[in-house]
Protein backbone atom coordinates (compact mmCIF):
# COMPACT_ATOMS: atom_id res chain seq x y z
CA UNK A 1 0.00 0.00 0.00
CA UNK A 2 2.04 2.91 -1.23
CA UNK A 3 -0.89 5.31 -1.05
CA UNK A 4 -1.80 6.34 2.47
CA UNK A 5 -5.59 6.51 2.85
CA UNK A 6 -5.58 10.11 3.99
CA UNK A 7 -4.31 11.37 0.66
CA UNK A 8 -7.63 10.45 -0.91
CA UNK A 9 -9.11 13.49 0.76
CA UNK A 10 -6.85 15.84 -1.08
CA UNK A 11 -6.56 14.21 -4.47
CA UNK A 12 -7.96 16.18 -7.38
CA UNK A 13 -11.01 18.16 -6.34
CA UNK A 14 -12.10 15.68 -3.68
CA UNK A 15 -11.86 18.05 -0.76
CA UNK A 16 -13.74 20.87 -2.45
CA UNK A 17 -16.36 18.36 -3.59
CA UNK A 18 -16.82 17.24 -0.01
CA UNK A 19 -17.10 20.85 1.11
CA UNK A 20 -19.64 21.40 -1.67
CA UNK A 21 -21.63 18.45 -0.35
CA UNK A 22 -21.42 19.86 3.15
CA UNK A 23 -22.79 23.15 1.83
CA UNK A 24 -25.77 21.33 0.31
CA UNK A 25 -26.39 19.63 3.64
CA UNK A 26 -26.12 22.87 5.59
CA UNK A 27 -28.29 24.75 3.11
CA UNK A 28 -31.09 22.20 3.22
CA UNK A 29 -30.98 22.05 7.00
CA UNK A 30 -30.74 25.82 7.32
CA UNK A 31 -33.58 26.70 4.96
CA UNK A 32 -35.76 23.95 6.41
CA UNK A 33 -35.09 25.24 9.91
CA UNK A 34 -35.96 28.83 9.04
CA UNK A 35 -39.16 27.89 7.20
CA UNK A 36 -40.07 25.32 9.83
CA UNK A 37 -39.49 27.81 12.62
CA UNK A 38 -41.88 30.32 11.09
CA UNK A 39 -44.45 27.61 10.36
CA UNK A 40 -44.03 26.21 13.86
CA UNK A 41 -44.58 29.56 15.56
CA UNK A 42 -47.77 30.15 13.58
CA UNK A 43 -49.08 26.64 14.23
CA UNK A 44 -47.98 26.74 17.88
CA UNK A 45 -49.93 29.96 18.43
CA UNK A 46 -52.99 28.49 16.67
CA UNK A 47 -52.77 25.44 18.92
CA UNK A 48 -53.29 27.66 21.99
CA UNK A 49 -56.62 28.94 20.63
CA UNK A 50 -59.90 27.53 21.85
CA UNK A 51 -61.19 26.19 18.51
CA UNK A 52 -61.33 22.41 18.98
CA UNK A 53 -61.41 21.38 15.34
CA UNK A 54 -58.38 23.50 14.56
CA UNK A 55 -56.52 22.05 17.52
CA UNK A 56 -57.40 18.51 16.48
CA UNK A 57 -56.20 19.00 12.92
CA UNK A 58 -52.91 20.52 14.06
CA UNK A 59 -52.48 17.76 16.59
CA UNK A 60 -52.90 15.14 13.85
CA UNK A 61 -50.39 16.99 11.72
CA UNK A 62 -47.87 16.88 14.55
CA UNK A 63 -48.46 13.20 15.29
CA UNK A 64 -48.13 12.29 11.64
CA UNK A 65 -44.71 13.87 11.35
CA UNK A 66 -43.67 12.49 14.71
CA UNK A 67 -44.74 8.90 14.14
CA UNK A 68 -43.76 8.39 10.51
CA UNK A 69 -39.97 7.90 10.25
CA UNK A 70 -38.15 10.56 8.28
CA UNK A 71 -36.93 8.02 5.72
CA UNK A 72 -40.49 7.06 4.96
CA UNK A 73 -41.45 10.72 4.64
CA UNK A 74 -38.62 11.34 2.21
CA UNK A 75 -39.62 8.34 0.07
CA UNK A 76 -43.23 9.34 0.22
CA UNK A 77 -42.55 12.85 -0.98
CA UNK A 78 -39.88 11.89 -3.48
CA UNK A 79 -41.16 8.71 -5.09
CA UNK A 80 -44.83 8.27 -4.31
CA UNK A 81 -46.56 11.65 -4.13
CA UNK A 82 -45.05 13.08 -7.34
CA UNK A 83 -46.48 10.15 -9.31
CA UNK A 84 -49.86 10.34 -7.66
CA UNK A 85 -50.20 14.10 -7.73
CA UNK A 86 -48.15 14.78 -10.76
CA UNK A 87 -45.70 17.34 -9.51
CA UNK A 88 -41.98 17.31 -9.90
CA UNK A 89 -39.45 19.03 -7.75
CA UNK A 90 -35.71 18.49 -7.59
CA UNK A 91 -34.58 16.19 -4.80
CA UNK A 92 -33.00 18.95 -2.73
CA UNK A 93 -36.21 20.97 -2.75
CA UNK A 94 -38.23 17.91 -1.79
CA UNK A 95 -35.81 17.34 1.05
CA UNK A 96 -36.09 20.96 2.18
CA UNK A 97 -39.88 20.71 2.07
CA UNK A 98 -40.02 17.49 4.08
CA UNK A 99 -37.61 18.79 6.67
CA UNK A 100 -39.44 22.12 6.92
CA UNK A 101 -42.76 20.37 7.47
CA UNK A 102 -41.17 18.14 10.08
CA UNK A 103 -39.50 21.08 11.87
CA UNK A 104 -42.81 22.99 11.69
CA UNK A 105 -44.59 20.09 13.38
CA UNK A 106 -42.03 19.72 16.16
CA UNK A 107 -41.74 23.48 16.61
CA UNK A 108 -45.49 23.83 16.95
CA UNK A 109 -45.30 21.59 19.99
CA UNK A 110 -42.35 23.46 21.48
CA UNK A 111 -44.02 26.83 20.90
CA UNK A 112 -47.35 25.69 22.28
CA UNK A 113 -45.69 24.24 25.37
CA UNK A 114 -43.78 27.46 25.96
CA UNK A 115 -46.84 29.64 25.40
CA UNK A 116 -49.01 27.76 27.86
CA UNK A 117 -46.28 27.85 30.48
CA UNK A 118 -46.21 31.65 30.46
CA UNK A 119 -48.02 32.46 33.72
CA UNK A 120 -51.73 33.21 33.44
CA UNK A 121 -51.22 36.58 35.10
CA UNK A 122 -49.10 37.75 32.22
CA UNK A 123 -51.98 37.21 29.84
CA UNK A 124 -54.39 38.96 32.18
CA UNK A 125 -52.23 41.98 32.78
CA UNK A 126 -51.79 42.27 29.04
CA UNK A 127 -55.55 42.20 28.55
CA UNK A 128 -56.00 44.64 31.42
CA UNK A 129 -54.03 47.33 29.57
CA UNK A 130 -56.28 46.89 26.56
CA UNK A 131 -54.09 44.78 24.28
CA UNK A 132 -55.97 42.84 21.64
CA UNK A 133 -55.21 39.19 20.98
CA UNK A 134 -52.63 39.88 18.30
CA UNK A 135 -50.83 42.46 20.47
CA UNK A 136 -50.95 40.16 23.48
CA UNK A 137 -49.16 37.42 21.58
CA UNK A 138 -46.81 39.75 19.76
CA UNK A 139 -45.54 41.81 22.70
CA UNK A 140 -46.13 39.67 25.78
CA UNK A 141 -46.59 35.97 25.22
CA UNK A 142 -44.35 35.12 22.27
CA UNK A 143 -41.29 37.03 23.55
CA UNK A 144 -41.57 35.23 26.87
CA UNK A 145 -42.19 31.89 25.19
CA UNK A 146 -39.11 32.31 23.02
CA UNK A 147 -36.72 32.51 25.96
CA UNK A 148 -38.27 29.30 27.26
CA UNK A 149 -38.06 27.48 23.95
CA UNK A 150 -34.61 28.40 22.66
CA UNK A 151 -32.79 25.37 24.13
CA UNK A 152 -35.38 22.93 22.78
CA UNK A 153 -35.18 24.65 19.40
CA UNK A 154 -31.42 24.33 19.23
CA UNK A 155 -31.69 20.67 20.13
CA UNK A 156 -34.20 20.23 17.34
CA UNK A 157 -31.73 21.91 14.97
CA UNK A 158 -28.99 19.42 15.90
CA UNK A 159 -31.40 16.55 15.27
CA UNK A 160 -32.32 18.00 11.90
CA UNK A 161 -28.69 18.36 10.89
CA UNK A 162 -27.95 14.78 11.90
CA UNK A 163 -30.97 13.49 10.04
CA UNK A 164 -29.80 15.10 6.81
CA UNK A 165 -27.57 12.00 6.52
CA UNK A 166 -30.66 10.31 5.08
CA UNK A 167 -30.67 12.63 2.11
CA UNK A 168 -28.52 10.34 -0.02
CA UNK A 169 -31.44 7.92 -0.07
CA UNK A 170 -33.28 10.27 -2.39
CA UNK A 171 -30.04 10.98 -4.24
CA UNK A 172 -29.39 14.49 -3.00
CA UNK A 173 -25.74 15.35 -3.54
CA UNK A 174 -25.09 15.97 0.12
CA UNK A 175 -21.81 15.44 1.91
CA UNK A 176 -22.44 11.75 2.56
CA UNK A 177 -23.44 10.97 -0.98
CA UNK A 178 -20.33 12.68 -2.32
CA UNK A 179 -18.18 10.93 0.25
CA UNK A 180 -19.63 7.63 -0.90
CA UNK A 181 -18.82 8.44 -4.51
CA UNK A 182 -15.25 9.34 -3.64
CA UNK A 183 -14.83 6.11 -1.72
CA UNK A 184 -16.13 4.02 -4.58
CA UNK A 185 -14.01 5.80 -7.16
CA UNK A 186 -10.85 5.30 -5.13
CA UNK A 187 -11.54 1.89 -3.69
CA UNK A 188 -8.75 0.17 -5.62
CA UNK A 189 -6.05 2.74 -5.13
CA UNK A 190 -6.95 3.70 -1.55
CA UNK A 191 -8.65 0.80 0.24
CA UNK A 192 -8.46 2.58 3.60
CA UNK A 193 -9.89 5.77 2.18
CA UNK A 194 -13.29 4.88 3.58
CA UNK A 195 -12.11 5.54 7.13
CA UNK A 196 -10.67 8.90 6.22
CA UNK A 197 -13.65 10.06 4.24
CA UNK A 198 -16.11 9.05 6.92
CA UNK A 199 -13.74 10.37 9.55
CA UNK A 200 -13.82 13.76 7.88
CA UNK A 201 -17.61 13.66 7.56
CA UNK A 202 -17.81 12.77 11.22
CA UNK A 203 -15.63 15.80 11.98
CA UNK A 204 -17.86 18.05 9.86
CA UNK A 205 -21.00 16.96 11.66
CA UNK A 206 -19.29 17.25 15.00
CA UNK A 207 -18.05 20.76 14.28
CA UNK A 208 -21.57 21.89 13.45
CA UNK A 209 -23.57 20.04 16.07
CA UNK A 210 -21.31 20.19 19.08
CA UNK A 211 -21.25 24.00 19.41
CA UNK A 212 -25.02 24.01 18.99
CA UNK A 213 -25.67 21.55 21.77
CA UNK A 214 -23.11 23.30 23.98
CA UNK A 215 -24.94 26.56 23.36
CA UNK A 216 -28.31 24.99 24.19
CA UNK A 217 -26.97 23.64 27.48
CA UNK A 218 -25.48 26.97 28.42
CA UNK A 219 -28.69 28.88 27.67
CA UNK A 220 -30.75 26.40 29.65
CA UNK A 221 -28.38 26.66 32.60
CA UNK A 222 -28.47 30.44 32.50
CA UNK A 223 -32.23 30.44 32.34
CA UNK A 224 -32.51 28.15 35.35
CA UNK A 225 -30.06 30.29 37.28
CA UNK A 226 -32.07 33.33 36.45
CA UNK A 227 -35.43 31.89 37.45
CA UNK A 228 -34.05 30.42 40.67
CA UNK A 229 -31.98 33.42 41.60
Amino acid at each position, binding site marked *: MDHSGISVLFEGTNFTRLLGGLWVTVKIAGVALILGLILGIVLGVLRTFKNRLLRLILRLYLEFFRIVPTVVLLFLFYYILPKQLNFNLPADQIATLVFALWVGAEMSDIVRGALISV*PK*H*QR*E*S*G*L*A*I*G*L*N*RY*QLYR*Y*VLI*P*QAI*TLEIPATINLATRVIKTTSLLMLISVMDVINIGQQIIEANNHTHPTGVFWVYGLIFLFYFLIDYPLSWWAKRLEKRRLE*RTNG
Partner: protein
Amino acid sequence: MADQILQVEHLEKYYQKRHVLYDINFSVAKGEVVTLLGPSGSGKSTLIRCLNGLEPYQKGTITFEDQQVDPTEKNWQQIRQKIGMVFQSYDLFPNLTVIDNIMLGPTKVQKQSADAARAEAIQLLQRVGLEDYADAYPRMLSGGQKQRIAIVRALALHPDFMLFDEVTASLDPEMVRGVLNIIKDLAETDNMTMIVVTHEMNFAQEIADRVLFLENGKILEQTPSKQFFAKPQTDRAQEFLDSMDF
Protein backbone atom coordinates in the same frame (compact mmCIF):
# COMPACT_ATOMS: atom_id res chain seq x y z
CA MET B 1 -77.70 59.29 37.74
CA ALA B 2 -75.36 61.37 35.63
CA ASP B 3 -72.53 61.06 38.08
CA GLN B 4 -72.64 57.26 38.20
CA ILE B 5 -69.62 55.80 36.50
CA LEU B 6 -70.47 52.15 37.06
CA GLN B 7 -73.66 50.27 37.73
CA VAL B 8 -73.94 46.56 38.32
CA GLU B 9 -77.38 45.00 38.25
CA HIS B 10 -78.43 41.46 39.12
CA LEU B 11 -75.06 40.03 38.24
CA GLU B 12 -74.66 36.27 38.65
CA LYS B 13 -71.46 34.35 38.14
CA TYR B 14 -70.81 30.63 37.91
CA TYR B 15 -67.55 28.74 37.55
CA GLN B 16 -68.92 25.81 35.56
CA LYS B 17 -71.67 24.49 37.87
CA ARG B 18 -70.47 26.42 40.87
CA HIS B 19 -72.44 29.50 41.77
CA VAL B 20 -70.02 32.12 43.17
CA LEU B 21 -71.79 35.50 42.84
CA TYR B 22 -75.48 35.97 43.66
CA ASP B 23 -77.58 38.88 42.48
CA ILE B 24 -74.92 41.57 42.81
CA ASN B 25 -76.27 45.13 42.72
CA PHE B 26 -74.31 48.29 43.36
CA SER B 27 -73.13 51.44 41.70
CA VAL B 28 -70.11 53.66 42.00
CA ALA B 29 -70.22 57.44 41.63
CA LYS B 30 -67.55 59.47 39.91
CA GLY B 31 -64.70 60.17 42.32
CA GLU B 32 -65.93 57.67 44.86
CA VAL B 33 -63.64 55.17 46.58
CA VAL B 34 -65.33 51.89 47.37
CA THR B 35 -63.58 49.17 49.31
CA LEU B 36 -64.68 45.62 48.86
CA LEU B 37 -64.24 43.64 52.05
CA GLY B 38 -65.05 40.08 52.95
CA PRO B 39 -63.57 36.77 54.05
CA SER B 40 -61.31 34.74 51.83
CA GLY B 41 -63.25 32.94 49.12
CA SER B 42 -66.22 35.29 49.36
CA GLY B 43 -65.83 36.28 45.70
CA LYS B 44 -64.05 39.65 45.86
CA SER B 45 -61.53 38.85 43.14
CA THR B 46 -64.17 37.23 40.98
CA LEU B 47 -66.41 40.29 41.21
CA ILE B 48 -63.67 42.78 40.47
CA ARG B 49 -62.49 40.67 37.52
CA CYS B 50 -66.01 40.61 36.09
CA LEU B 51 -65.92 44.41 36.07
CA ASN B 52 -63.29 44.56 33.36
CA GLY B 53 -64.28 41.49 31.47
CA LEU B 54 -61.55 39.13 32.63
CA GLU B 55 -64.27 36.77 33.85
CA PRO B 56 -67.49 36.16 31.95
CA TYR B 57 -70.72 36.46 33.93
CA GLN B 58 -73.88 34.51 33.23
CA LYS B 59 -76.63 36.94 34.16
CA GLY B 60 -77.13 40.61 34.84
CA THR B 61 -75.73 43.79 33.38
CA ILE B 62 -72.80 46.09 33.84
CA THR B 63 -73.22 49.71 32.81
CA PHE B 64 -70.05 51.70 32.42
CA GLU B 65 -70.19 55.45 31.80
CA ASP B 66 -73.87 55.25 30.88
CA GLN B 67 -73.34 52.52 28.31
CA GLN B 68 -74.58 49.05 29.06
CA VAL B 69 -71.67 46.73 28.29
CA ASP B 70 -72.24 44.26 25.51
CA PRO B 71 -69.88 41.61 26.85
CA THR B 72 -67.98 40.66 23.73
CA GLU B 73 -64.20 40.40 23.82
CA LYS B 74 -63.89 43.27 21.38
CA ASN B 75 -66.02 45.59 23.48
CA TRP B 76 -64.19 44.71 26.65
CA GLN B 77 -60.94 45.43 24.93
CA GLN B 78 -62.11 49.00 24.29
CA ILE B 79 -63.49 49.46 27.77
CA ARG B 80 -60.38 48.12 29.49
CA GLN B 81 -58.43 51.16 28.33
CA LYS B 82 -60.62 53.19 30.65
CA ILE B 83 -60.47 50.76 33.54
CA GLY B 84 -57.04 50.26 35.07
CA MET B 85 -56.46 47.11 37.06
CA VAL B 86 -53.64 46.10 39.37
CA PHE B 87 -53.36 42.56 40.71
CA GLN B 88 -51.89 40.94 43.77
CA SER B 89 -49.06 39.20 41.94
CA TYR B 90 -46.25 41.29 40.53
CA ASP B 91 -47.16 41.04 36.94
CA LEU B 92 -44.87 43.36 35.00
CA PHE B 93 -43.79 41.90 31.67
CA PRO B 94 -40.34 40.43 32.37
CA ASN B 95 -39.28 40.71 28.72
CA LEU B 96 -39.61 44.50 28.74
CA THR B 97 -37.83 47.26 30.64
CA VAL B 98 -39.77 49.35 33.12
CA ILE B 99 -40.33 52.17 30.65
CA ASP B 100 -41.38 49.77 27.88
CA ASN B 101 -43.83 48.12 30.26
CA ILE B 102 -45.40 51.50 30.87
CA MET B 103 -45.33 52.63 27.24
CA LEU B 104 -46.77 49.44 25.74
CA GLY B 105 -50.43 50.34 26.26
CA PRO B 106 -50.18 54.02 25.29
CA THR B 107 -48.19 53.35 22.12
CA LYS B 108 -49.77 50.12 20.87
CA VAL B 109 -53.32 50.34 22.14
CA GLN B 110 -53.84 54.10 22.08
CA LYS B 111 -51.38 54.81 19.25
CA GLN B 112 -49.72 57.69 21.07
CA SER B 113 -46.36 58.76 19.73
CA ALA B 114 -43.37 57.19 21.43
CA ASP B 115 -42.05 60.59 22.52
CA ALA B 116 -45.29 61.66 24.15
CA ALA B 117 -45.73 58.28 25.82
CA ARG B 118 -42.15 58.32 27.08
CA ALA B 119 -42.42 61.83 28.47
CA GLU B 120 -45.53 60.92 30.36
CA ALA B 121 -44.10 57.62 31.58
CA ILE B 122 -41.10 59.47 33.02
CA GLN B 123 -43.40 61.92 34.73
CA LEU B 124 -45.41 59.12 36.28
CA LEU B 125 -42.23 57.36 37.38
CA GLN B 126 -41.12 60.56 39.06
CA ARG B 127 -44.41 60.72 40.83
CA VAL B 128 -43.76 57.33 42.44
CA GLY B 129 -40.07 58.06 42.98
CA LEU B 130 -38.75 55.47 40.52
CA GLU B 131 -37.49 57.55 37.59
CA ASP B 132 -33.99 56.07 38.06
CA TYR B 133 -35.33 52.64 37.16
CA ALA B 134 -36.76 53.47 33.75
CA ASP B 135 -34.32 51.22 31.92
CA ALA B 136 -34.17 48.45 34.50
CA TYR B 137 -35.78 45.06 33.96
CA PRO B 138 -38.49 43.98 36.40
CA ARG B 139 -36.34 41.19 37.86
CA MET B 140 -33.97 43.83 39.28
CA LEU B 141 -36.73 45.44 41.35
CA SER B 142 -38.21 44.72 44.75
CA GLY B 143 -41.84 43.67 45.09
CA GLY B 144 -42.88 47.12 46.28
CA GLN B 145 -41.15 48.80 43.36
CA LYS B 146 -42.76 46.42 40.89
CA GLN B 147 -46.16 47.07 42.32
CA ARG B 148 -45.70 50.84 42.11
CA ILE B 149 -44.73 50.45 38.47
CA ALA B 150 -47.73 48.22 37.82
CA ILE B 151 -49.87 51.09 39.10
CA VAL B 152 -48.04 53.55 36.85
CA ARG B 153 -48.53 51.22 33.89
CA ALA B 154 -52.27 51.29 34.46
CA LEU B 155 -52.32 55.07 34.95
CA ALA B 156 -50.45 55.69 31.71
CA LEU B 157 -53.64 54.87 29.81
CA HIS B 158 -55.53 57.69 31.58
CA PRO B 159 -58.18 55.42 33.04
CA ASP B 160 -61.39 56.86 34.45
CA PHE B 161 -61.65 54.08 36.96
CA MET B 162 -59.19 51.89 38.84
CA LEU B 163 -59.53 48.40 40.28
CA PHE B 164 -57.06 47.19 42.92
CA ASP B 165 -57.12 43.56 43.98
CA GLU B 166 -55.10 43.09 47.18
CA VAL B 167 -52.12 44.84 45.67
CA THR B 168 -50.14 44.72 48.90
CA ALA B 169 -50.96 41.17 49.94
CA SER B 170 -47.71 39.62 48.74
CA LEU B 171 -45.42 42.47 49.77
CA ASP B 172 -42.97 42.57 52.64
CA PRO B 173 -44.51 44.66 55.43
CA GLU B 174 -42.05 47.53 55.00
CA MET B 175 -43.04 47.88 51.34
CA VAL B 176 -46.76 48.08 51.98
CA ARG B 177 -47.05 51.68 53.06
CA GLY B 178 -45.32 53.08 50.00
CA VAL B 179 -47.78 51.38 47.69
CA LEU B 180 -50.81 52.31 49.77
CA ASN B 181 -49.70 55.94 49.82
CA ILE B 182 -49.76 56.04 46.05
CA ILE B 183 -53.33 54.74 45.99
CA LYS B 184 -54.29 57.25 48.63
CA ASP B 185 -52.68 60.06 46.68
CA LEU B 186 -54.60 59.01 43.59
CA ALA B 187 -57.83 59.24 45.50
CA GLU B 188 -57.02 62.58 47.11
CA THR B 189 -55.09 64.42 44.43
CA ASP B 190 -56.62 63.02 41.25
CA ASN B 191 -60.00 62.30 42.70
CA MET B 192 -59.76 58.92 40.98
CA THR B 193 -62.75 56.62 41.12
CA MET B 194 -61.78 53.23 42.44
CA ILE B 195 -62.71 49.90 43.88
CA VAL B 196 -60.12 48.59 46.32
CA VAL B 197 -60.00 45.06 47.65
CA THR B 198 -57.73 44.94 50.68
CA HIS B 199 -56.96 43.13 53.89
CA GLU B 200 -55.47 46.28 55.39
CA MET B 201 -58.34 47.51 57.55
CA ASN B 202 -56.61 50.71 58.63
CA PHE B 203 -56.03 51.61 55.05
CA ALA B 204 -59.59 50.74 54.07
CA GLN B 205 -60.85 53.03 56.77
CA GLU B 206 -58.56 55.86 55.70
CA ILE B 207 -59.44 55.72 52.08
CA ALA B 208 -62.98 54.41 51.65
CA ASP B 209 -66.08 56.48 51.11
CA ARG B 210 -68.18 53.36 51.21
CA VAL B 211 -67.69 49.70 52.07
CA LEU B 212 -69.23 46.77 50.24
CA PHE B 213 -69.18 43.71 52.44
CA LEU B 214 -69.27 40.45 50.57
CA GLU B 215 -69.82 36.99 51.97
CA ASN B 216 -70.40 33.72 50.15
CA GLY B 217 -70.94 35.56 46.91
CA LYS B 218 -73.57 37.95 48.25
CA ILE B 219 -73.33 41.61 49.13
CA LEU B 220 -74.46 41.61 52.74
CA GLU B 221 -74.22 45.35 53.18
CA GLN B 222 -73.19 48.60 51.57
CA THR B 223 -72.42 51.13 54.22
CA PRO B 224 -70.69 54.51 54.35
CA SER B 225 -67.19 53.90 55.57
CA LYS B 226 -67.34 55.80 58.87
CA GLN B 227 -70.46 53.99 59.87
CA PHE B 228 -69.18 50.59 58.75
CA PHE B 229 -66.04 50.79 60.83
CA ALA B 230 -67.87 52.22 63.82
CA LYS B 231 -70.78 49.83 63.72
CA PRO B 232 -71.61 47.71 60.69
CA GLN B 233 -75.23 46.86 59.98
CA THR B 234 -74.81 43.09 60.03
CA ASP B 235 -73.45 40.74 62.66
CA ARG B 236 -71.43 38.93 60.02
CA ALA B 237 -69.58 42.13 59.16
CA GLN B 238 -68.98 42.80 62.85
CA GLU B 239 -67.53 39.28 63.25
CA PHE B 240 -65.38 39.88 60.21
CA LEU B 241 -64.01 43.13 61.64
CA ASP B 242 -63.35 41.44 64.97
CA SER B 243 -61.52 38.61 63.24
CA MET B 244 -59.34 41.10 61.42
CA ASP B 245 -58.02 42.19 64.81
CA PHE B 246 -59.27 45.64 64.24
